[in-house]
């Protein structure tokens, strides 16, 4: 263990003014916290997958087995697919906002009036 506070130093800020993306600092912070949690859930899912695969193949596991685990090509693909699906679920709103830009829709209330009257 080195004498530096690696946890604190790992999260150090990079020099250079950070752009204002979202218009207010709290939203900025909320997004960074949320994305960190999103990342950690992904890590947990992958770890669980490792545990399941080791149990399938050996019937028993140790922490050392988990640390050593290297997926073969098929397992790597399945795990990559799992992460891809997971991200797509998390980012659904963003995908749909992008799709919405492709159309020019009127409010459902207008359609409602139209259907009532015609």
């Amino acid at each position, binding site marked *: 263990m*080195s004498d530096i506070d690696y946890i604190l130093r790992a999260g150090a800020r990079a020099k250079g003014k950070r752009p204002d993306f*979202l218009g207010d600092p709290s939203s900025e912070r909320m997004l960074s916290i949320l994305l960190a949690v999103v*990342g950690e859930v992904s*890590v947990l899912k*992958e770890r669980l997958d490792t545990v399941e695969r080791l149990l399938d193949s050996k019937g028993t596991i140790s922490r050392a087995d988990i640390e050593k685990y290297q997926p073969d090509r098929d397992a790597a693909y399945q795990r*990559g*697919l799992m992460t*891809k699906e997971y991200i797509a679920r998390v980012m659904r709103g963003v995908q749909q906002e992008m799709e919405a830009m492709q159309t020019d829709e009127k409010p459902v209330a207008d359609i409602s009036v139209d259907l009532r009257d015609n």
Partner: protein
Amino acid sequence: MKREDVPPPYTAVTRHEVFPTPTHDEAARFNFLTAFNKYLSGVVGPGNKLAYEKRVLPAFRAEHQRDPKDRFEIRHAMNKDPWHRFWSACKRNSMEMRQQNGRSMVLRQLEALDAKAREFNADRPTLELNPSVATPRYQNAVDIHCMPGSYHGEERPGDVSAGANYDCGIFATTAGGLGALSDGGGQALVEWIKRERPGWTPKRILDVGCTIGHNIVPLALAFPETEIIAIDTAAPVLRYGHARAQALGAKNLKFIQMNAEDLSRFPDGHFDWVQTTMFLHELSGKALPQIIREGVRVLAPGGLMLHLEQPQYSDEMPLYEQFIRDWDAFNNNEPFWSAMHAMDLKKVIEAAGLPRSSQFVTGVRAVVDPTVFPVAASGEKEDHGRAAVWNAYGAWKPQS
């Protein structure tokens, strides 16, 4: 689902002897970031263009009665668009998370990494550090691509933290596009020269701004008889890079801490190959031509000058593409990126003494093991500015 639509796992990265050892979860964090980056560029990246065409451009035209005249006007307009802003915020966070994960992995085992590097570095004539080399102003202005401490920062004196962090995370930033040793660019140069000049063995090669030597080690291994010198101003990346090169068996490669603006240590015509890879965009308007001039001076008649970079902006490149290629410049601490890509490199190389008739430009795509690593996407789904697809701006120095 095609295999190449799913990125390779972090465990596919080669762990050479000085590579930091990831825990299961650190590898999984990089896997997440790799997939997330791929999602941001590939799946929702095209949304930026949509936002531009559907609403930002029409609004601009309505307000100004004309089209945007340059990439800056597009950027100012796009920076007001909520979709683009949110996308940018995600991309910036992804980079910050990559830095934190890489640094955490490196700093918790820094003692062991430094010790390992010392084993390879102590008393070797192939590593020459010079503490009197100052960090150039353009390297000090901000922490380049949000790496806390940039290339030259140390967490403790004499450490390799910057180099190790750079090495372990580049896989995630480029979604695996550079291959197992993140050296797909250097491997491409080897393939290119073997095609271009079969049978040629350069006597001496100079690699300028080598960082940890990702793209010079393949040349050193391909030309074991060649004397190769790699220079950089930052000691931490040189310490790590030298140890890494030794571990990979590149013994004909010497790392020297030196500022490329002044190569007076080398006589005229000393090298028959002078190159930079992904380097020119991190300089300044004054330093770039000076470094090219010095490079031309130390290049022998008949020798090769080569600069690998993302494509330059030109009048043929649509303004929107220029704008999106500029993203890292303003959002990922690359302050010279935008100006550099707008420079007329051919003119700069010509002014340094290599006439247009000796120059060439050629496309280069990362060479990776395609059974494991993705072949870099280009076009609409490309991760602009980071894709493993470059241009080589080169010249063969005339004989007299």
